[in-house]
């Protein structure tokens, strides 16, 4: 198979986007009102994720109680059918455990945990389809579901991935692009330039890092705005409905 051209000299990517364009981002909040305290659904390109938050609640396991603040648990489950080639995944796969830990670390900083002593907040994520940017989509879905659950947070955390093709940074990679270049995933705090998440597992020349981060932060801010619109749409709908 001839090597696919990920970024053409004319500045077009495999799916026709330019270097700084996001894929279609679609999100919904409060998708599972009967089965969770907070819920959301996020589509980032062809990556599709459901998030359901339960809590703050009495911990099922006494030993997990923490009197200084809520214990936050993430549980990502990746459906066997989420990739083009079906693959049965064990629940203790290393990759999944890493995702859980990364998300826990990220949200422990943004949830105001001290408000919920001796409780557990569990965040359950279901990956229905993946086409790149998985960690970013999981981060965004978690932010929305936590907001839906009414859990206090300092700010939105919005996630995005960006890769380096030769010397050009590319925003929001799909699977094909992820497999062909070095990339990183970040989570940005609100409209600031602060990162609460940075995952870089490949080599990237230090000289290019700044450009890459700049476009990723800009992309995250756009995602934050899109999520904020959905939160406000839902809030307004609710406010108009609640006739007291």
């Amino acid at each position, binding site marked *: 198979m001839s090597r696919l051209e990920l970024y053409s000299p004319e500045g077009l990517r495999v799916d026709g986007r330019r270097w700084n364009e996001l894929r279609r981002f679609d999100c919904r909040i*409060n998708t599972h009102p009967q089965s969770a*305290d*907070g819920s959301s659904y996020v589509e980032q390109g062809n990556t599709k994720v459901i998030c359901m938050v339960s*809590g*703050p*609640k*009495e911990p099922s396991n006494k030993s997990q109680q923490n*009197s200084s603040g809520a214990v936050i648990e993430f549980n990502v489950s990746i459906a066997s059918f989420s990739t083009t080639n079906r693959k049965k995944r064990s629940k203790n796969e290393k990759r999944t455990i890493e995702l859980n830990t990364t998300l826990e670390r990220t949200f422990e900083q943004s949830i*105001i945990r001290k408000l*919920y*002593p*001796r*409780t557990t907040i569990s965040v359950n994520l279901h990956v229905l389809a993946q086409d790149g940017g998985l960690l970013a989509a999981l981060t965004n879905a978690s932010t929305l579901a936590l*907001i*839906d*659950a*009414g*859990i*206090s*947070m*300092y*700010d*939105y955390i919005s996630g995005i991935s960006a890769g380096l093709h030769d010397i050009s940074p590319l925003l929001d990679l799909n699977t094909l692009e992820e497999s062909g270049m070095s990339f990183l995933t970040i989570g940005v*705090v*609100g*409209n600031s330039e602060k990162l609460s998440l940075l995952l870089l597992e490949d080599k990237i020349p230090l000289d290019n890092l700044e450009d890459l981060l700049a476009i990723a932060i800009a992309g995250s801010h756009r995602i934050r*705005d899109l999520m*904020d*619109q*959905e*939160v*406000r*749409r*839902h*809030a*307004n*709908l*609710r*406010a*108009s*409905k*609640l*006739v*007291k």
Partner: protein
Amino acid sequence: MDILKITQPEALSQDVESDIEMSDNENEVTGNSLVTPGELVTDDPVWMKGHGTYFLDNKTYSSVAGSVSRVNRLLSVIPLRGRYQPETGDHVVGRITEVGPKRWKVDIGGKQDAVLMLGSVNLPGGVLRRKSESDELQMRNFLKEGDLLNAEVQSIFSNGSASLHTRSLKYGKLRNGIFLKVPSNLIIKSKNHSFDLPGNISIILGVNGYIWLYKTPSSGRKNNINASSNKAQASFDAKGGYNPGQGSVSITRLEEESSWEIYSDKNDPNITGSVRKNIASYYNIIKALSHGELGITEQRIIMGYEASLAYGNSGSLIEKEAMESICEDVLNSEKMRGDAS
């Protein structure tokens, strides 16, 4: 009535969609002010910081998505959703989750289980009786895991959890009916949370969204209770158990009724089919109001009941269309009465 009624998820209505596309009107909101996490609420330091806010560099930010509330000098943001937040004086319905040393843990739908101290309940034999070690040993004979009760929030601990009491005749174990849950923000606080409804049904609308629907106790309540309490006590004695209050003379009515009867697990043996059917109808009406996100009040439940009489079979009330039409009927009759808020 269909054996299996199937619907599809609904697309967002068009006008809502178009709202989203007009991206820069984020601040245009219905009602007063809607804020989302991380949004600056005020940089005026005179405000006291309440729930749903945090303070950073002399500025107050929102930590939840909700509406800003300014009461006196207290600034808070009320989230759109969230678990029940207990307040002193709330009348709640709860379920025992754990029996511990001198206390029960009670699920009231909050962030943490509430606590019911052994000292906060009426024990058989009346209030004047002293609590003894034997009471502690037989706590499960009073209330055990799974038991439902209604109670009042007595106080709130510093960590936000509630302490309950049942030291009144209107509180205690629940019998003769069924339990259901609705989101607690649909329950509007009022002076009274227990009502008699048409059809010989009573209801306890717990402030926490936990609801108990049951047969209205017969009017000769007092006599009945005394009669059956003797029975209950007799049966307990037969098991070689506890003998509270025997030989003592009843001093107050409270004491008299605080017999073992209040902890009985036995239902009234005469719950008729029509009472059971009415309970099922009310169950569906409350579910319908909750589906429509209408605040649930005594009056609305009764109006819903009247509207539901048009349905020959209340089993069809579980269908989405029927639920929505019940809500419409309720809102329309409110308009007609002119008491819509």
